[in-house]
């Protein structure tokens, strides 16, 4: 009897060092360092603790959403309603603030609104089996539409002074509260996606949802939770942004959904699902923030920045493919 040849399960194609060298994150790290050095050369104002601290506000709020969005995209879904959730959450916060609520209630209402919006998306996608891109394009108009109905061309302002801490406060020296929140969420999402069974399930679903289902993963429940997470993170971002602006207008955070998705894709997450890492998204967020800030220091018109970011996005995606000869 000839025994079948033992099946070798390859878990590593190359040595860890070689893998790390050729990984997406390495490329991003090189780009980030290049951006940093380039900015230092080009502007005398770049290497200044306070200026760099100001620059972090360009990406912290978007990045918080991008962490949750990265997991969602790894799982093969997408949420285009995140910016509209910010608008609705901010409007809800304005309403309870006008009614005389204190800071803790305002914050809870902001995050709670995000949670409810996420649940709506999650129910429509996971519960009813509708495609997420269609559902969230719909809720994108729906959520912001409600904010416009409530506010029209008006604005909520007069948030209590203590509320300003979330978007304008500093924990220590130049380290802002938003930056601390960004680091904490980066660690949490890293642990969840890369060090937990839930994270494994997310990858499994993104690679083959049917196989994941038959492996005993409760696919729809995982999807529902992922939508809840993007909703909650949008709520958190709404608290920070509203606090930073000190006011609410229904047009708040217009266009952020695409910037968040850009951040995720630049971070190396496969838009078709199945692969991607949180460190990649962290690096992409920093690159985008530093490029915007550096160009701003040189007074480069914003449209040139958009062109540069677009080229960077295509370049970072194309170069590794060319290197691998695919």
């Amino acid at each position, binding site marked *: 009897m000839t025994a079948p040849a033992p099946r070798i399960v390859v878990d590593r194609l190359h040595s860890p060092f070689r893998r790390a060298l050729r990984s997406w994150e390495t490329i991003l790290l090189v780009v980030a360092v290049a951006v940093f050095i380039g900015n230092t*050369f080009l502007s*005398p104002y770049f290497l200044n603790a306070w200026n760099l601290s100001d620059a972090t506000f360009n990406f912290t709020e978007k990045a918080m959403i991008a962490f949750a969005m990265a997991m969602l995209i790894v799982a093969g879904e997408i949420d285009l309603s995140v910016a509209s959730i910010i608008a609705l959450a901010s409007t809800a916060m304005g309403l309870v603030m006008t009614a005389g609520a204190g800071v803790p209630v305002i914050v809870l209402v902001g995050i709670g609104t995000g949670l409810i919006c996420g649940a709506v998306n999650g129910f429509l996608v996971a519960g009813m089996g509708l495609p997420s891109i269609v559902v969230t394009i719909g809720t994108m108009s729906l959520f912001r539409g409600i904010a416009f109905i409530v506010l029209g061309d008006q604005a909520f*302002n007069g948030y209590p002074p203590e509320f300003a801490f979330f978007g304008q406060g500093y924990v220590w020296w130049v380290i802002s509260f938003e930056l601390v929140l960004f680091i904490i969420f980066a660690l949490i999402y890293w642990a969840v996606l890369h060090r937990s069974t839930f994270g494994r399930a997310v990858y499994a679903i993104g690679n083959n949802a049917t196989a994941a289902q038959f492996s005993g993963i409760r696919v729809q429940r995982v999807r529902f939770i992922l939508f809840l997470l993007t909703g909650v993170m949008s709520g958190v971002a709404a608290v920070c942004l509203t606090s930073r602006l000190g*006011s609410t*207008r229904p047009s708040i*955070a217009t266009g952020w959904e695409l910037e968040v998705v850009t951040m995720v894709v630049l971070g190396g997450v496969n838009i078709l699902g199945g692969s991607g890492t949180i460190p990649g998204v962290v690096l992409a967020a920093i690159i985008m923030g530093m490029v915007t800030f550096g160009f*701003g220091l040189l007074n480069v018109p914003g449209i040139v920045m958009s062109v540069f970011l677009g080229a960077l996005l295509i370049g970072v995606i194309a170069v590794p493919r060319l290197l691998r000869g695919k």
Partner: protein
Amino acid sequence: MSIWKKALATAAVATALMAQSAAAQDVKIAIVVKALGIGFFEAAAKGAEEAAAELGDVEIIYTGPTDTTAEGQIEVINSLIAQGVNAIAVSANDKDALVPTLQKAMERGITVISWDSGVAPEGRMMHLNPSSNALIGNTIIKLAADHLPEGGDVAILSASATATNQNIWIEEATKVLPNYPGINLVATVYGDDLADKSYREAQGLMATYPNLKAIIAPTTVGILAASQAVTDAGKIGEINVTGLGLPSEMAGAVASGATKSFAIWNPIDLGYAATMISYNLVKGNAKAEPGAEIGMGRMGAAKLDDGNEAAMSDPFTYDASNIEQFKSIF
């Protein structure tokens, strides 16, 4: 010498050089607009450069976001704060959302003013309006009177009966009417800022008042519709259409003679005046406080009211002599 040391040394030299060239420029004034690529604001930037050339020791930084968002303007303002500009003159996308960032700018010693589209009082030192209600009210009557030396019947074609701006201007216009003897205001009608309704109202005016000499429309929709109605009725030369319009839309009516002249703010003057005010505040030539007068170069002086707001001037008059220059701007 390693590459790193070389790089650092070069960076240090470059930094020193840039610091020197920065010191050679005395006053850095940033003109922040709602969005780049809008003709009105490009014209304002031209005015700012004109003021800079006149003053000599001024560097203008003309900037703004790519779309009209408050978040985009905040990113721009943050990078201006980082560059240590001396003054920021902003036309705001959101009067409230910019306040925290602009307060931070003021805390770091930067002069902050708003122009065109204002910022809430706590976020700026002063605001420059292109004009004032009283000046606009006077201008629209004057425009008609200038071409009626012997007087005659005039009518007003407004926007809707509830339009706040237009109602205030018409109220101001009726106040100054006694200063223009012979000008007889026979009717005020409302076209609701709809092209077809305004057109019909203008036709109605011509039918009802055969001696009508001028139609005054203090709205860009109304003035365009009325000049079309006058042209279609073959009454060019008999009835002059005037009021507030946009040069790009009114060029045809001015060419045909249906409109002899009309008015609107001049963006070049506005950019010029905002730069002059910023400069004078930075140099300490004036303080932004109620009652203060701040020099605006060739535009005279801006007098601040109790809310630290000032009106620049009468709306600027456009006619056959300058319409070609402005029609491509806005």
